[in-house]
């Protein structure tokens, strides 16, 4: 489904990725863990073309993204990115809700405008999702009137409403209480059961272990280890992973 090959990415003088590769199969759930600043968010952003990269290749469901020229992309480049984005949904670390729209409008905007779904149908779908995560009474609020956790949940629902084939979650539960994390988890699990490929950046190890088919460990812009969750958490191969997990799991 997703193939990343020899990805190189620099921010000005910070050479972050020095050629990393990863294959993700359809329907797989992959958890990305690793210290803050190790490049997890950047990796997700490269996959849906929000971040320009200097070298390498990203292939999503057969559509190829090369080192896109962000300054003057060709028509085909733009078309390719657009196609990828239709397949790939993303939940941002900073939510990026639309401040001039209500919760409901935030959610139905893309389904109605892009997929051409009937407004009523879209609203019903949105309300169903909102109900599951306890937000049905906030449908007509504007984002600035919501608590942090509420905003995060709206951002998740907004991305899910597009029914993408791949979802990129960037710390989707950071502002959620554990109770709500469980709720969100079950929503995601349902989608996974429907065959959605899922990439999740998370700092909650138990969450990563529970939900994922595979765990990818980032450190300093490099993938230092990948493996089954049980393997990684019980028997990490790499010293750095061991160190990271030992500090984390002894709590």
């Amino acid at each position, binding site marked *: 489904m997703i193939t990343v090959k020899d990805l190189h990415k620099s921010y000005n003088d910070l050479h972050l990725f020095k050629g990393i590769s990863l294959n993700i199969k359809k329907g797989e759930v992959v958890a990305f863990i690793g210290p803050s600043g190790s490049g997890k968010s950047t990796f997700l952003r490269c996959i849906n073309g929000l971040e320009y990269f200097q070298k390498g290749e990203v292939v999503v469901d057969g559509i190829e993204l090369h080192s896109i020229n962000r300054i003057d992309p060709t028509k085909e480049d733009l078309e390719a990115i657009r196609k990828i984005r239709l397949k790939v949904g993303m939940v941002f670390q900073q939510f990026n809700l639309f401040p001039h729209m209500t919760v409901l409008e935030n959610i139905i905007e893309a389904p109605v*405008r892009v997929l051409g779904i009937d407004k009523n149908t879209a609203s019903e779908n949105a309300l169903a999702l909102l109900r599951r995560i306890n937000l049905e009474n906030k449908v007509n609020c504007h984002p600035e009137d919501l608590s942090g956790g509420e905003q995060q949940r709206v951002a998740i629902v907004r991305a899910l409403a597009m029914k993408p084939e791949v979802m990129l979650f960037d710390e989707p539960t950071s502002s959620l209480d554990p109770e709500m994390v469980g709720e969100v988890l079950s929503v995601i699990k349902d989608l996974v059961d429907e065959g959605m490929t899922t990439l999740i950046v998370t700092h909650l190890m138990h969450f990563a272990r529970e939900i994922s088919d595979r765990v990818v460990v980032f450190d300093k812009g490099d993938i230092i280890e990948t493996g089954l969750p049980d393997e990684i958490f019980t028997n990490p191969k790499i010293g750095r992973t061991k160190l990271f997990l030992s500090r984390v799991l002894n709590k």
Partner: protein
Amino acid sequence: MFKKIFNKVIFILSLFFIVNLSSNASFCAEISPLDKIKERGSIMWGADAEGGAPYIFPDPKDPEKFIGFEVDLAEAIARELGVKAKHVQNAWDSLIPALERGDCDIAMNGIEITPQRKEHILFSRPYYVYVEQLVVRKEETAIKGIDDLKGKKVGTLSGTVAQNILEGMGGVDVKIYPGQVEPYEDLAIGRIDGVLLDLPIAAYYGKPNPKLKYAGNPMGEGLYGIAIRKEDENLKNKIDEIIDKLLRTGELKKIYEKWDLWNAAQEKLFENIQGERGYVDLEKSKSAPVYTFFPYLIKGAGVTILISVTSMALAIILGLFLTLLRLYGRKPFNNLAVAYIEIYRGTPLLIQLFILYYGLPNIGISMSPFLAAFIGLGMNYAAYEAELYRAGIMAVPKGQMEAGLSLGMSQGLTVQRIILPQAFRIALPGITNDFIALFKDSSLVSIIAMVELTKTYNILAASTLRFFELGLITAVLYFGMSYPLSLLARRLENKLKRKK
């Protein structure tokens, strides 16, 4: 050739604030009824020697002395009063204010007797009768006289009797021009259907043009009267007596014959008229109270609003197009947008209007004044709007664009649905600024024969002399246009803010 309007705008402005300045340059400053004149031994009469022959003008033999039929008349009157005549120079436009301020005892300089003026001053019985001439295109057959003008476009100068006649008729589309050449020009190229002006002007500018011809006989007689301060009733009576005497003795006729001004129309002077006749009939509707001017001023304000609102609409749309081209357009086009913006911001609006209205006919594109004003103002302001939108768009956090894109929305759709609504809120105060500035800039279009609020004010003030009253009303009207806009903008702002 455009000096007239500017002259008037400026003069009227100056009237408000520098009334006292000109007194240094004038030669008398006493307030004096009939007795004072006798005591002083001279009657001060105001006239503008620049107005020219045959009224009052420098004697070629001795340029420091003035001659003219009004000089002769003034001297005859003075003689009858037993005093000497002393000329006080004043710009024509300011003769009546100068009279009212007491710079002179009477004003006599081809001043028509109009009801508006009579609000402020007394007039002696008329001392001269003059006429108006209609000019049309040579091939014109439908217009044989002034009665055929209903529904036609007719040009004239501002503040003239001809204008009053045309407006008094009703149903005539009157076009006010700043100078004497343009109406005949526009007539020749078909922008208007006729020109009504004083016979001398028609003779000079209209007659020689091979494309034009006179239509009908001279008409719309007007009367010249001597202006006297309201409170100097006894002076007025005395002067009426004197004119009467000069008429009866034939001295007045002799003066006019000397200056070759006598004609059949002057016989009217002998009728027992009180000075209210002549074209005054045409003006019955315009009577004293200020509110009678409201329709005219409001019509002017309407034109101002029409021009401003339509060109602002153009500016907003074209500006948006320019911004989008600049920010999201492909290579050569975004630079074209930048060039457009820099050039239109960098060149004066006046030049742009001139090219549109007077330049383009040279290559065969002839626009109506309204179209030229609309396009000229709109294209100019579009450049400014474009920059304001850009500022608004840049202020929207870039996460918003990313969120839209990663929902699969195209860039265009994201801009339309996500970026612009937020950018608009930010740009709104600047847009309001420009809209208000546009209300005032729109007065520039009077150079292309549009009569908007400033022009209407100038015209009314020049013919009624109620500079201050009308000025106040005009100022209130301008403010009345811009302030609701401010309020509206503020409400919109609040609404958008709450929705943020």
